[in-house]
């Protein structure tokens, strides 16, 4: 490449480099510094260095105080309560939501990808229908879902009630029980059901992951399955022993992305939060937002919360990374 070309290369990457420096590397360093200061709303410029005080305030436990009913949660045994219980509450919510939603979306998108790989006429339209909600997963769809999940006037509970009614005669005849008066979930109006409600909503937007897994499935050499079939392996064995190992990098990728998204979830929490959930949808990102952008605008503290959330997210994705690496090591080790 000529000298002119070399200069041109830098011209081509210049916008990206400027953007990276201004909106990624720069803020990253600034955030680290901010988290060590007491910067707050009006006086962000006159912030003072406070060392690790923000981290201590966020994660610390006050041993002199008694644990109260709304206290720290089961993972903090013994006396004392956190100096900021909402940190643990919001992180716990995010972790619980992640633990619920990732297995569902991962299993769901894998099942859908395997289904849609079958050569059946009309499945290309199904693929479109599955992908579309993935694109529409914004505020509009959240608003629609909140109405669909309305305990009294929504379609979901109407369907549940219909199932109850249909099962009633059968259950009466066989077991002598009636479904009359069986409870229906309160969904977004309940502390216990609000997270499952969110999982339900997320399950409708797996289309992106389905597409990634389908692309990976297309790369699995068909000879492998055929050879296994000749050896007498059934469909289930072929799936477990041939397809899934080949699919592992894609599964790791999807699992990683789903985990990070769930840990960072904000919009769904902000739009769908309701008093009757008793902070059940107060996620870590939402608490960060509240801390920074609602009075008294504790910016330094919020920056520290960001790093804590990033650290927890890092711990959550470590298993995925380890799982992905194990395969690479295995491949290099010999075949």
């Amino acid at each position: 490449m000529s000298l002119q070309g070399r200069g041109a290369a830098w011209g081509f990457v210049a916008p990206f480099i400027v953007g990276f420096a201004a909106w990624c590397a720069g803020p990253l360093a600034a955030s680290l510094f901010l988290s060590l200061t007491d910067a707050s709303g009006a006086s962000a410029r006159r912030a003072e260095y406070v060392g690790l005080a923000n981290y201590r305030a966020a994660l610390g436990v006050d041993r002199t105080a008694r644990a109260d009913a709304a206290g720290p949660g089961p993972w903090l045994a013994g006396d004392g309560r956190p100096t900021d219980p909402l940190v643990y509450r919001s992180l716990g919510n995010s972790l619980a939501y992640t633990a619920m939603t990732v297995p569902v979306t991962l299993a769901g998108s894998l099942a859908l990808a395997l289904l849609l790989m079958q050569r059946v006429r009309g499945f290309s339209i199904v693929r479109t229908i599955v992908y579309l909600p993935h694109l529409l997963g914004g505020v509009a769809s959240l608003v629609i879902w909140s109405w669909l999940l309305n305990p009294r006037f929504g379609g979901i509970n109407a369907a549940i009630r219909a199932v109850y009614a249909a099962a009633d005669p059968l259950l009466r005849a066989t077991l002598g029980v009636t479904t009359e008066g069986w409870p229906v979930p309160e969904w977004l109006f309940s502390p216990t059901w609000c997270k499952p409600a969110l999982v339900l909503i997320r399950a409708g937007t797996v289309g992106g992951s389905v597409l990634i897994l389908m692309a990976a499935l297309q790369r699995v050499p068909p000879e492998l399955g055929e050879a296994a079939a000749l050896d007498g392996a059934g469909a289930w064995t072929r799936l477990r022993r041939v397809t899934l190992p080949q699919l592992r990098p894609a599964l790791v990728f999807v699992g990683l992305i789903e985990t990070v998204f769930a840990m960072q979830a904000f919009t769904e929490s902000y739009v769908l939060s309701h008093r009757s959930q008793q902070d059940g949808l107060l996620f870590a990102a939402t608490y960060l937002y509240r801390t920074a952008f609602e009075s008294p605008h504790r910016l330094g503290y919020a920056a520290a919360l960001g790093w804590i959330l990033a650290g927890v997210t890092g711990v959550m994705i470590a298993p995925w990374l380890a799982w992905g690496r194990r395969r690479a090591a295995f491949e290099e080790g010999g075949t």
Partner: protein
Amino acid sequence: MRLSRGMHVTSVAVAVGVCAWMLLPMLWAATSALKPLEETYAFPPTFRVESPQPGNFVEAFRRLPMARFLLNSTWIAGVSAIGAVLTSAMAGYALARFEFRGRRIVGACVLAALLVPSQILIVPRFLQFEWLGWLGTYKPLIVPAWLGGGAFNVLLFRQFFVATPREAEDAARLDGAGPWTVFLRVALPSARPAVVTAGFLSFVFHWQEFLDPLLYLTDFKTFPVSLGLRMFQTLAGTWANLLMAASVAAMLPLVLLFLAIERDLMRGLGVLTSARRGRGTCDPD
């Protein structure tokens, strides 16, 4: 693999069920939007619409400036998407085609930008935009898109160009075209699937963006439809039929756009998802 008859029937049945689930919110919204208010609060609820009220849509647009919100979103998402495609294509092209000192560092920056958790950046970015005097304008939403256009898009274009033969570009260069001419006249037009895919995904991303407008916009007349809808929900959420009409209006442009370019998009996504693990990740060709 050929399917047995039973498997075939089961597959179709499951697929129909899945489609019903995927389409449920849109159908529910569409029917609710056409109901008179007392029908939306009928018990038990149904999909049936006794007396359709298309006037609900007009009413929804009258209560809040929904048309304005839609226009704002179109502008923000459109301008951002153009910038994102242009600058990420430039970076991806350079990474795929040029040998230059520091290329590995630039590649590392792309990966780093993908990995940095966004919540760490929220507070410093806000202070930065405040310092720049950009609060209350569209600049915080648009300018970053014009500078880099997202690491994911850069990677996408890099993969696309790595997988594309360069003969046409070499021929143009031999004819005396400079690197910029080659890029704009030869490389970019040949990257149509990548351009359509990256452009569309950026458009959707910026259309759906909620936190950034929430942080940086102050005047409700400048709100994109995501914020506008949230406002609708808090101010007039009990008018369920109008709220559903507004939600349908907020999604319809994306649905139409998607259906218009679906063929190109699916091909682009296919090429790109399979190119993701194509030839080496960060190594020179």
